[in-house]
């Protein structure tokens, strides 16, 4: 059996759904963060698949940009989470609700 574009789309959709549900349901900031990364990578997978399918390099190039931005984002985001933990002694989003109106 050959793996076609459909399988890639299904896999990428599943990954994205897992990431989405992770952000929606989990309480731990780090897990939420990992779920976010999962969604980004699901998008990357879909882009690479489409790039291959269309025999064009545009999608592959876009993936590099996303990876770069994601790396930078992780660097900043993790730093924020560390600082938050130092200040609040927690990383649960349930307790991080100071801006509630």
């Amino acid at each position, binding site marked *: 059996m050959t793996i076609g574009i459909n399988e890639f789309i299904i896999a990428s959709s599943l990954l994205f759904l897992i990431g989405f549900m992770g952000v*929606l349901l989990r309480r731990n900031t780090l897990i939420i963060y990992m779920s976010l990364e999962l969604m980004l990578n699901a998008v990357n997978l879909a882009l690479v698949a489409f790039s291959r399918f269309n025999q064009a390099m545009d999608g592959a190039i876009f993936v590099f940009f996303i990876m770069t931005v994601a790396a930078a984002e992780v660097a900043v985001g993790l730093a924020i989470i560390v600082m938050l933990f130092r200040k609040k002694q927690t990383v649960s989003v*349930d307790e991080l*609700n100071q801006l509630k*109106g």
Partner: protein
Amino acid sequence: MDILTILLIILFTPLVASLVIILIGKERRKWAPAIALLGSIGILISTTGLFLESQEFSYQYSWEWLSFGENTFYLGFVFDNIGATMLAMVSIVSLCITVFSMGYMSDDPARGRYFAGLSFFMFSMLGIILSSNLIMIFLFWELVGFSSYLLIGHYFDKNEARQASQKAFIVNRIGDFGFLIGIILTYWQFGTTNLEAIAGAVGVDASLISHLIGGLLICGFIGKSAQFPLHVWLPDAMAGPTPVSALIHAATMVAAGIYLLIRIDCLLTLEVLTFIAYLGTFVAVYAGFCAFAQKDIKRILAYSTLSQLGYMAAILGLGYSGIALFHLITHAFFKALLFLGAGAVIHACHHEQSIDKMGGLFKKMPITATSFIIGTLALCGVYGLSGFYSKDAILIAALDSNFQLFLLLILGAFLTAGYMGRLIWTVFLGKANSENADHAHEVSPIMSGPLIVLTLFAVLVGLNHYWPFGLGGIVSLDLDHLHHLEHYKSMHKTVLIWGSAAWIVGLLGSLLFYGRGSKADRLQDKAPKLYAFLESRLWMDELYAFYVNKIQQRLADILSFLDEVLLRGFIIRGGAGLVGVLGVGLRILQVGRLNAYYLWFFVGLILLWLYAAS
């Protein structure tokens, strides 16, 4: 010195005196009378200087005041025969009253404020007299109203005085509103407010004047000269110190309304003049009746002033503005004399003002009583005294033009003699009716001096052919016109008989009816209903109270309701409420959990997507 300099000195001397009194601070009480006196003497001297300098009484000067767009407004002086005559009268009367005030107010702790106000009033009054255009007249017109307000409210710790000062100010404001609109319309019609230019324009094209402009301009006169229906403030204004009543509310300020009419004579149509004539006659008779039901000596004199202003208005309305000026001048002297006499009586009786509680004062205060009686006789028009000449001229002119008015004015003269007779018989004859009157004694020379001077004027000022410096040109002009009328001789005889009959019957009748030094008012005893009717003064005050409380207040309530409900309730509160409800709804979304916000974000994204897709 040139005329402009002297005019400026005359105008600003009292203002400077007033400012100096205010600025010297603590020493004010000691020096105020002296400074005010210096100011008055300064006015008199510079006025005399002006008369010597200016032989012809024809001087105009104006300078630009405000200029915007194509409109330019000017301030300016006019010094003509009418103004000069007024100036002479005001400077003499105000000097007498200032001297009298030094005695009358000697034990008043607020002398400084009083004399500053008095000087300020003189500044304003001189401003009206010297103004050459309507706008400048209006400026000083308002200043006069303001100083009148200040001085009526001198005893501001008394509720009566406070209310009277506000009443005077507000009632005058109503008249002045019409006056101001009249000035604006005049400017619109003529492109200038300079009185000489207007007179010239009217002379060329008489169709320029209209009932509307004339009718609005005389509103100022009706307010300031206290004519019906805005007369209600003048009797109440007697709450001020008596010299103030003499200067402002008898001799000068209320006469300013007549002076204004003389100035704007050319702007008044025949119908407006006829209206003034009937209005004046009505007031002359109406005020005469009202005076019978008053017990306060000053209020009787106030109604007498109203009645005499009515005479001036009546004759002016008949077209003889010169005779109106003549009566204005004679009236100013004898009415100032009467008020100062009343002031002396009140001072001697320890501020007792009710005539029922006086009596027998002739023996105790011979100088005051004699001068007061001479003033009364002048007011009644007894032959040979000043009032005779002007009233005689008024009656002849009335007989010539309108017989109904003549009869009413004769009735007015009879009433004048009646209530003045009641006043002097009750106050000066008989026996003292109260302890205060019993202890009364003649006032000091500083107060009796001005009385004597004014008595001389009250006797002699009617001889207008002997006025110095050729004053009173317009008066002689109108009198000559009268003398050359057909049937002048027979009319003069008629008036002499009727006029003399009026005062003789009035004075003797009141003596017989009221008796000497009576304790209680006989009219009140014999005909209480008639007395109550006269005392009600046609219920004008009640009518105004009804109007303000019931009608105006209702309208204000409706407007206030609209404001509360529509503006405040509906638009302002309603708008705030709407935003508030929206806020409550939106606040539900703010649950304070990151996951929820994430969900809202997702929902929003889907909605946006749906919107973009549709």
